[in-house]
Protein backbone atom coordinates (compact mmCIF):
# COMPACT_ATOMS: atom_id res chain seq x y z
CA UNK A 1 0.00 0.00 0.00
CA UNK A 2 1.38 3.39 -0.99
CA UNK A 3 0.23 6.81 0.20
CA UNK A 4 -1.68 7.52 3.38
CA UNK A 5 -3.07 3.96 3.43
CA UNK A 6 0.33 2.69 4.64
CA UNK A 7 -1.06 3.03 8.17
CA UNK A 8 -3.78 0.45 7.41
CA UNK A 9 -1.24 -2.36 7.68
CA UNK A 10 0.22 -1.23 10.99
CA UNK A 11 -0.86 -1.50 14.61
CA UNK A 12 -1.54 1.95 15.99
CA UNK A 13 0.89 3.34 18.55
CA UNK A 14 -0.47 6.69 19.61
CA UNK A 15 0.93 9.91 21.01
CA UNK A 16 -1.83 12.03 22.54
CA UNK A 17 -1.03 15.73 22.75
CA UNK A 18 -3.60 17.83 24.61
CA UNK A 19 -7.03 16.77 25.81
CA UNK A 20 -6.66 14.09 28.42
CA UNK A 21 -9.97 12.33 27.73
CA UNK A 22 -8.56 11.19 24.36
CA UNK A 23 -5.71 9.56 26.31
CA UNK A 24 -8.32 7.75 28.41
CA UNK A 25 -10.21 6.50 25.35
CA UNK A 26 -6.99 5.03 23.90
CA UNK A 27 -6.35 3.21 27.20
CA UNK A 28 -9.97 1.96 27.21
CA UNK A 29 -9.36 0.48 23.77
CA UNK A 30 -6.05 -1.09 24.92
CA UNK A 31 -4.08 0.92 22.37
CA UNK A 32 -0.42 1.68 23.23
CA UNK A 33 -0.38 5.40 24.02
CA UNK A 34 1.87 8.07 25.51
CA UNK A 35 0.28 11.23 26.83
CA UNK A 36 2.04 14.55 26.37
CA UNK A 37 1.14 16.85 29.25
CA UNK A 38 1.41 19.79 26.92
CA UNK A 39 1.98 23.33 28.17
CA UNK A 40 2.42 26.45 26.07
CA UNK A 41 6.20 26.69 25.48
CA UNK A 42 8.11 29.69 26.82
CA UNK A 43 5.19 30.48 29.09
CA UNK A 44 3.07 31.18 26.02
CA UNK A 45 5.34 34.00 24.87
CA UNK A 46 5.26 33.53 21.11
CA UNK A 47 8.29 35.69 20.29
CA UNK A 48 10.37 33.73 22.76
CA UNK A 49 9.00 30.49 21.30
CA UNK A 50 10.18 31.46 17.83
CA UNK A 51 13.64 32.25 19.16
CA UNK A 52 13.80 28.91 21.01
CA UNK A 53 12.74 26.99 17.89
CA UNK A 54 15.42 28.73 15.82
CA UNK A 55 18.07 28.00 18.46
CA UNK A 56 17.19 24.29 18.36
CA UNK A 57 17.86 24.09 14.61
Amino acid at each position, binding site marked *: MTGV*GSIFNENLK*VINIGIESFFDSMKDQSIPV*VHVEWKPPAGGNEKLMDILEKLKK
Partner: protein
Amino acid sequence: MIRKTIIKENAYFDSVTLMLISSRVTGMSGVQNAAVMMGTDQNKELMLDSGLITEEDIQKITPNHMVIGILADNEHTVEEVLQGINDELTKKNTLKSDGEKRVKTQEEAVKAQPGSNFTIISIPGRFAKREVLKAIENNIHVLLFSDNVSIEDEIELKEKALEKGLLMMGPDCGTAIINGVSLGFANVVRQGSIGIVAAAGTGLQEVSTIIDRRGEGVSQAIGTGGRDIKEAVGGKMMLAGIEALKEDANTKVILIVSKPAAPGVTEKIYESLKGTAKPKVMCILGGEAQQIKAKGFYFTETLEDAGTVAALLVKGKEPMMTYFSETKEAISSLIHKEIAKLKPEQKCLRGLYGGGTLTYETLLIIRDILGDAYSNTPLKKELLLPDIKHSLGHTILDMGDDYFTNGRPHPMIDTRLRTERIKEEASKSETAVILLDCVIGYGAHEDPAASLAKTINEVKEKNSKEGRQIVFVASICGTEKDPQIRSEQERKLREAGVIVMDSNAQAARMAAIITERGKSLDELSWEVN
Protein backbone atom coordinates in the same frame (compact mmCIF):
# COMPACT_ATOMS: atom_id res chain seq x y z
CA MET B 1 -21.88 39.52 46.18
CA ILE B 2 -18.29 38.48 46.80
CA ARG B 3 -15.55 38.16 44.22
CA LYS B 4 -12.58 35.92 44.80
CA THR B 5 -9.64 35.58 42.44
CA ILE B 6 -6.80 33.12 42.87
CA ILE B 7 -3.80 33.01 40.56
CA LYS B 8 -1.71 29.83 40.70
CA GLU B 9 1.68 29.49 39.08
CA ASN B 10 2.97 26.35 37.34
CA ALA B 11 -0.28 24.47 37.32
CA TYR B 12 -1.44 23.28 33.91
CA PHE B 13 -4.59 21.41 32.98
CA ASP B 14 -6.09 21.09 29.51
CA SER B 15 -8.97 23.38 28.62
CA VAL B 16 -11.58 20.62 28.48
CA THR B 17 -10.78 19.47 32.01
CA LEU B 18 -10.94 23.03 33.32
CA MET B 19 -14.14 23.93 31.45
CA LEU B 20 -15.90 20.86 32.80
CA ILE B 21 -14.86 21.76 36.34
CA SER B 22 -15.98 25.38 35.78
CA SER B 23 -19.33 24.17 34.52
CA ARG B 24 -19.82 21.91 37.53
CA VAL B 25 -19.04 24.55 40.15
CA THR B 26 -21.08 27.25 38.41
CA GLY B 27 -24.10 24.99 38.85
CA MET B 28 -23.67 25.02 42.67
CA SER B 29 -26.27 26.96 44.63
CA GLY B 30 -25.30 30.50 45.64
CA VAL B 31 -22.80 30.78 42.79
CA GLN B 32 -23.41 33.55 40.29
CA ASN B 33 -20.44 32.64 38.13
CA ALA B 34 -17.21 30.74 38.50
CA ALA B 35 -14.41 29.72 36.19
CA VAL B 36 -11.05 28.09 36.33
CA MET B 37 -8.92 28.74 33.27
CA MET B 38 -5.36 28.97 32.05
CA GLY B 39 -4.32 32.61 31.75
CA THR B 40 -4.27 32.98 27.97
CA ASP B 41 -5.17 36.38 26.51
CA GLN B 42 -8.52 35.08 25.30
CA ASN B 43 -9.38 33.55 28.67
CA LYS B 44 -8.33 36.72 30.51
CA GLU B 45 -10.73 38.70 28.32
CA LEU B 46 -13.56 36.26 28.99
CA MET B 47 -12.97 36.40 32.74
CA LEU B 48 -12.71 40.18 32.72
CA ASP B 49 -15.97 40.48 30.74
CA SER B 50 -17.78 38.30 33.22
CA GLY B 51 -16.39 40.22 36.19
CA LEU B 52 -14.35 37.31 37.54
CA ILE B 53 -11.06 39.22 37.45
CA THR B 54 -10.07 42.90 37.39
CA GLU B 55 -7.91 44.99 35.06
CA GLU B 56 -5.29 44.91 37.79
CA ASP B 57 -5.27 41.09 37.82
CA ILE B 58 -4.77 41.02 34.05
CA GLN B 59 -1.30 42.51 34.40
CA LYS B 60 -0.17 39.72 36.72
CA ILE B 61 -1.53 36.78 34.77
CA THR B 62 0.51 34.91 32.13
CA PRO B 63 -0.47 31.83 30.09
CA ASN B 64 1.45 29.74 32.64
CA HIS B 65 -0.94 30.74 35.43
CA MET B 66 -4.09 28.90 36.31
CA VAL B 67 -6.72 31.42 37.36
CA ILE B 68 -9.74 30.75 39.54
CA GLY B 69 -12.47 33.39 39.58
CA ILE B 70 -15.61 33.15 41.70
CA LEU B 71 -18.65 35.39 42.11
CA ALA B 72 -20.85 34.09 44.91
CA ASP B 73 -23.41 35.15 47.50
CA ASN B 74 -21.15 34.77 50.54
CA GLU B 75 -17.78 33.64 51.90
CA HIS B 76 -19.11 30.23 52.75
CA THR B 77 -20.11 29.53 49.14
CA VAL B 78 -16.74 30.81 47.91
CA GLU B 79 -15.04 28.30 50.21
CA GLU B 80 -17.29 25.53 48.95
CA VAL B 81 -16.47 26.34 45.34
CA LEU B 82 -12.73 26.45 46.06
CA GLN B 83 -13.00 23.13 47.83
CA GLY B 84 -14.96 21.74 44.87
CA ILE B 85 -12.33 22.88 42.38
CA ASN B 86 -9.46 21.52 44.49
CA ASP B 87 -11.22 18.18 44.91
CA GLU B 88 -11.73 17.87 41.17
CA LEU B 89 -8.13 18.78 40.37
CA THR B 90 -6.79 16.38 43.01
CA LYS B 91 -9.06 13.65 41.69
CA LYS B 92 -7.66 14.30 38.22
CA ASN B 93 -4.11 13.87 39.53
CA THR B 94 -4.74 10.79 41.65
CA LEU B 95 -6.62 9.02 38.86
CA LYS B 96 -3.31 8.69 37.08
CA SER B 97 -2.54 5.02 37.33
CA ASP B 98 0.85 3.37 37.54
CA GLY B 99 2.49 2.36 34.33
CA GLU B 100 0.91 5.19 32.39
CA LYS B 101 3.29 6.90 30.06
CA ARG B 102 3.21 10.65 30.60
CA VAL B 103 5.79 13.02 29.23
CA LYS B 104 6.15 16.77 28.70
CA THR B 105 7.01 16.99 25.00
CA GLN B 106 6.46 15.14 21.73
CA GLU B 107 10.22 14.52 21.49
CA GLU B 108 10.11 12.67 24.81
CA ALA B 109 7.02 10.76 23.67
CA VAL B 110 8.78 9.53 20.54
CA LYS B 111 11.64 8.25 22.70
CA ALA B 112 9.32 6.76 25.34
CA GLN B 113 7.36 4.76 22.77
CA PRO B 114 9.50 3.70 19.82
CA GLY B 115 7.51 3.06 16.65
CA SER B 116 4.78 5.61 17.44
CA ASN B 117 2.86 6.06 14.20
CA PHE B 118 -0.17 8.18 15.05
CA THR B 119 -0.83 11.35 17.01
CA ILE B 120 -3.98 13.14 18.16
CA ILE B 121 -3.27 16.83 18.60
CA SER B 122 -5.81 18.90 20.51
CA ILE B 123 -3.90 21.91 21.83
CA PRO B 124 -4.82 25.55 21.18
CA GLY B 125 -4.72 26.14 17.41
CA ARG B 126 -1.96 28.71 17.35
CA PHE B 127 0.49 26.19 18.84
CA ALA B 128 -0.67 23.24 16.75
CA LYS B 129 1.44 23.77 13.62
CA ARG B 130 4.71 23.22 15.48
CA GLU B 131 3.51 19.89 16.84
CA VAL B 132 2.17 18.73 13.46
CA LEU B 133 5.48 19.56 11.77
CA LYS B 134 7.37 17.58 14.40
CA ALA B 135 5.03 14.62 13.89
CA ILE B 136 5.48 14.70 10.11
CA GLU B 137 9.24 14.86 10.57
CA ASN B 138 8.97 11.67 12.63
CA ASN B 139 6.75 9.91 10.04
CA ILE B 140 3.72 10.04 12.32
CA HIS B 141 0.16 10.24 10.95
CA VAL B 142 -1.87 13.10 12.42
CA LEU B 143 -5.41 13.74 13.57
CA LEU B 144 -5.50 17.49 14.21
CA PHE B 145 -8.49 18.12 16.44
CA SER B 146 -7.57 21.76 17.11
CA ASP B 147 -9.37 24.55 15.31
CA ASN B 148 -8.11 28.11 14.78
CA VAL B 149 -5.39 26.96 12.38
CA SER B 150 -5.11 29.19 9.30
CA ILE B 151 -6.01 27.82 5.88
CA GLU B 152 -2.46 28.63 4.70
CA ASP B 153 -1.03 26.47 7.47
CA GLU B 154 -3.54 23.74 6.67
CA ILE B 155 -2.40 23.66 3.04
CA GLU B 156 1.28 23.64 4.02
CA LEU B 157 0.80 20.87 6.60
CA LYS B 158 -1.26 18.70 4.27
CA GLU B 159 1.29 19.09 1.45
CA LYS B 160 4.16 18.16 3.76
CA ALA B 161 2.26 15.17 5.15
CA LEU B 162 1.26 13.88 1.72
CA GLU B 163 4.85 14.11 0.44
CA LYS B 164 5.63 11.48 3.07
CA GLY B 165 2.45 9.45 2.57
CA LEU B 166 0.99 10.52 5.90
CA LEU B 167 -2.55 11.34 6.96
CA MET B 168 -3.11 14.90 8.18
CA MET B 169 -6.76 14.84 9.15
CA GLY B 170 -7.99 18.30 10.13
CA PRO B 171 -7.68 20.96 11.43
CA ASP B 172 -11.00 20.82 13.22
CA CYS B 173 -11.25 17.08 12.57
CA GLY B 174 -13.34 15.65 15.37
CA THR B 175 -13.46 12.00 14.47
CA ALA B 176 -11.84 9.10 12.66
CA ILE B 177 -11.71 5.31 12.85
CA ILE B 178 -8.38 3.83 11.76
CA ASN B 179 -7.81 0.06 11.92
CA GLY B 180 -10.84 -0.29 14.17
CA VAL B 181 -9.57 2.27 16.68
CA SER B 182 -12.01 5.08 17.53
CA LEU B 183 -10.12 8.37 17.50
CA GLY B 184 -11.36 11.69 18.89
CA PHE B 185 -15.15 11.80 19.22
CA ALA B 186 -15.92 8.43 17.71
CA ASN B 187 -18.24 5.53 18.32
CA VAL B 188 -17.50 1.88 18.85
CA VAL B 189 -18.55 0.31 15.56
CA ARG B 190 -17.76 -3.14 14.22
CA GLN B 191 -14.98 -3.57 11.70
CA GLY B 192 -16.14 -4.38 8.21
CA SER B 193 -15.84 -3.47 4.58
CA ILE B 194 -17.24 0.06 4.22
CA GLY B 195 -14.55 2.71 3.82
CA ILE B 196 -15.58 6.28 4.62
CA VAL B 197 -14.03 9.64 3.85
CA ALA B 198 -15.88 12.50 5.51
CA ALA B 199 -15.52 16.25 5.65
CA ALA B 200 -18.24 16.23 8.31
CA GLY B 201 -17.58 15.23 11.94
CA THR B 202 -20.94 14.18 13.37
CA GLY B 203 -21.88 13.15 9.83
CA LEU B 204 -19.19 10.48 10.05
CA GLN B 205 -20.43 9.45 13.49
CA GLU B 206 -24.03 9.15 12.31
CA VAL B 207 -23.21 7.07 9.18
CA SER B 208 -20.77 4.78 11.00
CA THR B 209 -23.27 4.05 13.79
CA ILE B 210 -26.06 3.40 11.26
CA ILE B 211 -23.77 0.99 9.38
CA ASP B 212 -23.10 -0.84 12.65
CA ARG B 213 -26.80 -0.97 13.48
CA ARG B 214 -27.56 -2.38 10.01
CA GLY B 215 -25.21 -5.26 10.82
CA GLU B 216 -22.23 -4.15 8.73
CA GLY B 217 -18.93 -2.54 9.64
CA VAL B 218 -16.34 0.07 8.80
CA SER B 219 -12.93 -0.71 7.28
CA GLN B 220 -11.52 2.79 7.74
CA ALA B 221 -13.13 6.17 8.40
CA ILE B 222 -11.00 9.13 7.46
CA GLY B 223 -11.94 12.65 8.55
CA THR B 224 -10.58 15.53 6.51
CA GLY B 225 -11.71 18.65 8.40
CA GLY B 226 -14.52 20.72 6.89
CA ARG B 227 -12.26 23.11 4.94
CA ASP B 228 -10.54 20.36 2.96
CA ILE B 229 -13.12 20.52 0.16
CA LYS B 230 -12.75 24.26 -0.35
CA GLU B 231 -11.06 25.41 -3.56
CA ALA B 232 -7.94 26.64 -1.72
CA VAL B 233 -7.20 23.31 -0.05
CA GLY B 234 -8.37 21.45 -3.14
CA GLY B 235 -9.64 18.32 -1.39
CA LYS B 236 -6.09 17.18 -0.63
CA MET B 237 -6.99 14.80 2.19
CA MET B 238 -10.33 13.77 0.64
CA LEU B 239 -8.52 12.65 -2.52
CA ALA B 240 -5.69 10.96 -0.63
CA GLY B 241 -8.30 9.14 1.47
CA ILE B 242 -10.22 7.97 -1.60
CA GLU B 243 -7.02 6.68 -3.22
CA ALA B 244 -6.15 4.75 -0.06
CA LEU B 245 -9.63 3.18 0.13
CA LYS B 246 -9.49 2.25 -3.56
CA GLU B 247 -6.30 0.29 -2.90
CA ASP B 248 -7.41 -1.17 0.43
CA ALA B 249 -8.37 -4.83 0.01
CA ASN B 250 -10.65 -4.73 3.07
CA THR B 251 -12.77 -1.91 1.61
CA LYS B 252 -15.59 -3.17 -0.63
CA VAL B 253 -17.79 -0.05 -0.70
CA ILE B 254 -16.63 3.58 -0.61
CA LEU B 255 -18.80 6.17 1.15
CA ILE B 256 -18.22 9.91 0.90
CA VAL B 257 -19.92 12.26 3.38
CA SER B 258 -19.71 16.03 3.04
CA LYS B 259 -21.42 19.26 2.17
CA PRO B 260 -21.10 20.21 -1.52
CA ALA B 261 -17.44 20.76 -2.39
CA ALA B 262 -16.07 23.63 -4.46
CA PRO B 263 -16.76 22.90 -8.17
CA GLY B 264 -13.12 22.21 -9.04
CA VAL B 265 -12.77 19.86 -6.07
CA THR B 266 -16.00 18.04 -6.95
CA GLU B 267 -14.63 17.26 -10.42
CA LYS B 268 -11.42 15.87 -8.94
CA ILE B 269 -13.40 13.70 -6.52
CA TYR B 270 -15.52 12.31 -9.40
CA GLU B 271 -12.40 11.63 -11.45
CA SER B 272 -10.74 9.81 -8.60
CA LEU B 273 -13.83 7.72 -7.81
CA LYS B 274 -14.29 6.71 -11.44
CA GLY B 275 -11.04 4.80 -11.26
CA THR B 276 -12.43 1.94 -9.18
CA ALA B 277 -15.07 -0.73 -9.69
CA LYS B 278 -16.04 -0.65 -6.00
CA PRO B 279 -19.58 0.67 -5.43
CA LYS B 280 -19.57 4.33 -4.41
CA VAL B 281 -22.14 6.05 -2.20
CA MET B 282 -22.19 9.82 -2.10
CA CYS B 283 -23.94 11.54 0.78
CA ILE B 284 -23.50 15.15 -0.25
CA LEU B 285 -25.81 17.09 2.07
CA GLY B 286 -27.61 19.62 -0.10
CA GLY B 287 -25.89 18.26 -3.23
CA GLU B 288 -27.25 17.81 -6.74
CA ALA B 289 -28.72 14.31 -6.95
CA GLN B 290 -29.00 14.16 -10.73
CA GLN B 291 -25.44 15.24 -11.33
CA ILE B 292 -24.10 12.58 -8.97
CA LYS B 293 -26.34 9.79 -10.23
CA ALA B 294 -25.34 10.64 -13.81
CA LYS B 295 -21.76 9.75 -12.85
CA GLY B 296 -22.92 6.26 -11.88
CA PHE B 297 -22.64 6.81 -8.12
CA TYR B 298 -25.34 6.12 -5.53
CA PHE B 299 -26.67 9.37 -4.07
CA THR B 300 -28.37 9.73 -0.70
CA GLU B 301 -29.96 12.82 0.79
CA THR B 302 -29.55 11.81 4.42
CA LEU B 303 -26.87 10.32 6.63
CA GLU B 304 -29.17 7.47 7.57
CA ASP B 305 -29.74 6.53 3.95
CA ALA B 306 -25.99 6.72 3.31
CA GLY B 307 -25.29 4.19 6.07
CA THR B 308 -28.21 1.97 5.05
CA VAL B 309 -27.41 2.00 1.32
CA ALA B 310 -23.72 1.25 1.94
CA ALA B 311 -24.71 -1.66 4.21
CA LEU B 312 -27.18 -3.04 1.64
CA LEU B 313 -24.56 -2.83 -1.11
CA VAL B 314 -22.12 -4.87 0.98
CA LYS B 315 -24.82 -7.50 1.41
CA GLY B 316 -25.37 -7.42 -2.36
CA LYS B 317 -28.91 -6.13 -1.97
CA GLU B 318 -30.79 -3.37 -3.79
CA PRO B 319 -30.35 0.02 -2.13
CA MET B 320 -33.43 1.35 -0.37
CA MET B 321 -34.11 4.62 1.44
CA THR B 322 -35.94 4.96 4.74
CA TYR B 323 -38.51 7.61 5.58
CA PHE B 324 -39.62 6.15 8.89
CA SER B 325 -38.63 2.75 10.31
CA GLU B 326 -42.13 2.11 11.64
CA THR B 327 -45.36 1.60 9.72
CA LYS B 328 -47.37 4.52 8.44
CA GLU B 329 -50.19 3.66 10.87
CA ALA B 330 -47.88 3.64 13.89
CA ILE B 331 -46.22 6.92 12.92
CA SER B 332 -49.52 8.57 12.07
CA SER B 333 -51.10 7.58 15.37
CA LEU B 334 -48.06 8.82 17.33
CA ILE B 335 -48.07 12.12 15.47
CA HIS B 336 -51.79 12.74 16.09
CA LYS B 337 -51.43 11.92 19.78
CA GLU B 338 -48.68 14.53 20.09
CA ILE B 339 -50.52 17.15 18.02
CA ALA B 340 -53.47 16.90 20.41
CA LYS B 341 -51.25 18.24 23.21
CA LEU B 342 -50.48 21.51 21.44
CA LYS B 343 -52.28 24.83 21.73
CA PRO B 344 -52.96 26.88 18.57
CA GLU B 345 -50.24 29.44 19.40
CA GLN B 346 -47.57 26.70 19.64
CA LYS B 347 -46.36 26.93 16.06
CA CYS B 348 -42.58 26.83 16.20
CA LEU B 349 -39.92 24.15 16.04
CA ARG B 350 -36.76 24.72 18.07
CA GLY B 351 -33.78 22.46 17.42
CA LEU B 352 -30.90 22.51 19.90
CA TYR B 353 -27.97 20.51 18.55
CA GLY B 354 -24.52 19.48 19.68
CA GLY B 355 -23.49 18.12 16.27
CA GLY B 356 -22.74 20.50 13.39
CA THR B 357 -23.45 18.13 10.51
CA LEU B 358 -26.61 16.91 12.25
CA THR B 359 -27.78 20.55 12.47
CA TYR B 360 -27.17 20.97 8.76
CA GLU B 361 -28.98 17.76 7.87
CA THR B 362 -31.98 18.87 9.94
CA LEU B 363 -32.12 22.26 8.21
CA LEU B 364 -32.26 20.48 4.84
CA ILE B 365 -34.91 17.98 5.92
CA ILE B 366 -37.29 20.42 7.58
CA ARG B 367 -37.04 22.86 4.66
CA ASP B 368 -39.15 20.45 2.60
CA ILE B 369 -41.81 20.17 5.32
CA LEU B 370 -41.84 23.47 7.20
CA GLY B 371 -40.03 25.83 4.86
CA ASP B 372 -37.34 28.22 6.03
CA ALA B 373 -35.75 27.98 9.44
CA TYR B 374 -33.45 30.42 11.17
CA SER B 375 -30.08 29.27 12.42
CA ASN B 376 -26.61 30.38 13.45
CA THR B 377 -25.46 28.16 10.56
CA PRO B 378 -28.33 28.77 8.08
CA LEU B 379 -28.85 27.40 4.58
CA LYS B 380 -29.28 30.95 3.23
CA LYS B 381 -27.61 34.16 4.44
CA GLU B 382 -30.94 35.90 5.04
CA LEU B 383 -31.89 33.20 7.56
CA LEU B 384 -28.96 33.96 9.85
CA LEU B 385 -30.43 34.51 13.28
CA PRO B 386 -30.06 38.28 13.98
CA ASP B 387 -29.54 37.68 17.69
CA ILE B 388 -28.24 34.24 18.49
CA LYS B 389 -29.59 34.48 22.05
CA HIS B 390 -33.16 34.74 20.77
CA SER B 391 -34.81 32.18 18.51
CA LEU B 392 -37.14 33.35 15.76
CA GLY B 393 -39.85 31.30 14.01
CA HIS B 394 -38.47 27.84 13.41
CA THR B 395 -34.91 27.92 14.70
CA ILE B 396 -32.27 25.19 14.56
CA LEU B 397 -29.11 25.98 16.53
CA ASP B 398 -25.69 24.39 16.22
CA MET B 399 -24.61 24.89 19.82
CA GLY B 400 -21.15 23.54 19.08
CA ASP B 401 -20.53 26.76 17.14
CA ASP B 402 -17.78 29.13 18.32
CA TYR B 403 -20.28 31.64 19.69
CA PHE B 404 -21.45 29.16 22.29
CA THR B 405 -18.19 27.36 22.97
CA ASN B 406 -15.99 30.39 23.56
CA GLY B 407 -14.56 29.49 26.97
CA ARG B 408 -17.27 26.90 27.62
CA PRO B 409 -17.21 23.17 27.02
CA HIS B 410 -18.64 21.81 23.78
CA PRO B 411 -22.27 20.64 24.15
CA MET B 412 -21.18 17.11 23.27
CA ILE B 413 -19.07 16.91 26.43
CA ASP B 414 -21.15 19.07 28.75
CA THR B 415 -24.92 19.42 28.44
CA ARG B 416 -25.22 22.67 30.39
CA LEU B 417 -25.29 25.00 27.36
CA ARG B 418 -28.17 23.00 25.98
CA THR B 419 -30.10 22.44 29.18
CA GLU B 420 -30.09 26.21 29.80
CA ARG B 421 -31.43 26.80 26.31
CA ILE B 422 -34.02 24.01 26.62
CA LYS B 423 -35.44 25.79 29.68
CA GLU B 424 -35.56 29.06 27.80
CA GLU B 425 -37.21 27.67 24.66
CA ALA B 426 -39.70 25.68 26.70
CA SER B 427 -40.85 28.82 28.49
CA LYS B 428 -41.90 30.49 25.24
CA SER B 429 -45.55 30.34 24.23
CA GLU B 430 -44.76 29.80 20.52
CA THR B 431 -42.64 26.66 21.04
CA ALA B 432 -44.39 23.48 19.88
CA VAL B 433 -41.54 20.99 19.53
CA ILE B 434 -37.98 20.88 20.87
CA LEU B 435 -35.70 18.70 18.76
CA LEU B 436 -32.43 17.34 20.15
CA ASP B 437 -29.48 15.17 19.22
CA CYS B 438 -27.77 12.96 21.76
CA VAL B 439 -24.29 12.05 20.58
CA ILE B 440 -22.49 9.36 22.57
CA GLY B 441 -19.21 7.48 22.11
CA TYR B 442 -15.62 8.15 23.12
CA GLY B 443 -14.92 11.76 24.04
CA ALA B 444 -18.61 12.55 24.62
CA HIS B 445 -20.42 13.25 27.91
CA GLU B 446 -20.59 10.19 30.16
CA ASP B 447 -24.40 10.18 30.36
CA PRO B 448 -25.98 12.91 28.21
CA ALA B 449 -29.48 11.38 28.24
CA ALA B 450 -29.67 11.46 32.04
CA SER B 451 -28.73 15.11 32.08
CA LEU B 452 -31.13 16.06 29.27
CA ALA B 453 -33.92 13.99 30.85
CA LYS B 454 -33.50 15.73 34.21
CA THR B 455 -34.00 19.14 32.57
CA ILE B 456 -36.88 17.89 30.42
CA ASN B 457 -38.67 16.59 33.51
CA GLU B 458 -38.20 19.94 35.28
CA VAL B 459 -39.50 21.80 32.26
CA LYS B 460 -42.51 19.51 31.92
CA GLU B 461 -43.45 19.96 35.53
CA LYS B 462 -43.23 23.72 35.26
CA ASN B 463 -45.20 23.82 32.02
CA SER B 464 -47.91 21.51 33.29
CA LYS B 465 -48.58 23.96 36.13
CA GLU B 466 -49.21 26.54 33.43
CA GLY B 467 -51.44 24.09 31.54
CA ARG B 468 -49.08 23.78 28.60
CA GLN B 469 -47.24 20.86 27.03
CA ILE B 470 -44.25 20.77 24.73
CA VAL B 471 -43.28 17.87 22.52
CA PHE B 472 -39.69 16.62 22.75
CA VAL B 473 -38.18 14.65 19.87
CA ALA B 474 -34.63 13.26 19.83
CA SER B 475 -32.30 10.77 18.22
CA ILE B 476 -29.22 9.06 19.58
CA CYS B 477 -26.02 8.91 17.59
CA GLY B 478 -24.23 5.87 18.96
CA THR B 479 -24.14 2.10 19.34
CA GLU B 480 -24.72 -0.52 22.02
CA LYS B 481 -20.95 -0.93 22.38
CA ASP B 482 -20.36 2.75 23.17
CA PRO B 483 -19.42 3.40 26.81
CA GLN B 484 -22.79 5.14 27.39
CA ILE B 485 -24.77 2.26 25.77
CA ARG B 486 -27.33 3.34 23.18
CA SER B 487 -30.32 1.44 24.64
CA GLU B 488 -29.67 2.89 28.10
CA GLN B 489 -29.63 6.42 26.68
CA GLU B 490 -32.82 5.71 24.76
CA ARG B 491 -34.56 4.37 27.86
CA LYS B 492 -33.68 7.46 29.91
CA LEU B 493 -35.01 9.82 27.25
CA ARG B 494 -38.20 7.80 26.75
CA GLU B 495 -38.83 7.75 30.49
CA ALA B 496 -38.79 11.55 30.35
CA GLY B 497 -41.48 11.40 27.66
CA VAL B 498 -39.17 12.11 24.73
CA ILE B 499 -40.05 10.61 21.34
CA VAL B 500 -36.82 8.87 20.37
CA MET B 501 -36.45 8.20 16.67
CA ASP B 502 -34.14 5.79 14.89
CA SER B 503 -31.94 8.45 13.27
CA ASN B 504 -31.49 12.20 13.12
CA ALA B 505 -33.24 12.27 9.74
CA GLN B 506 -36.32 10.57 11.16
CA ALA B 507 -36.28 12.77 14.27
CA ALA B 508 -36.14 15.91 12.12
CA ARG B 509 -39.07 14.68 10.00
CA MET B 510 -41.09 13.70 13.02
CA ALA B 511 -40.50 17.07 14.71
CA ALA B 512 -41.39 19.00 11.55
CA ILE B 513 -44.57 17.02 10.85
CA ILE B 514 -45.83 17.48 14.41
CA THR B 515 -45.07 21.20 14.20
CA GLU B 516 -47.11 21.58 11.00
CA ARG B 517 -49.91 19.47 12.55
CA GLY B 518 -49.52 16.47 10.26
CA LYS B 519 -50.46 18.25 7.03
CA SER B 520 -47.84 16.47 4.96
CA LEU B 521 -48.53 13.02 6.41
CA ASP B 522 -50.71 11.87 3.52
CA GLU B 523 -48.19 12.94 0.91
CA LEU B 524 -45.52 10.73 2.40
CA SER B 525 -44.33 7.80 0.46
CA TRP B 526 -43.05 5.13 2.81
CA GLU B 527 -40.79 3.19 0.50
CA VAL B 528 -38.45 5.05 -1.79
CA ASN B 529 -36.04 3.29 -4.07
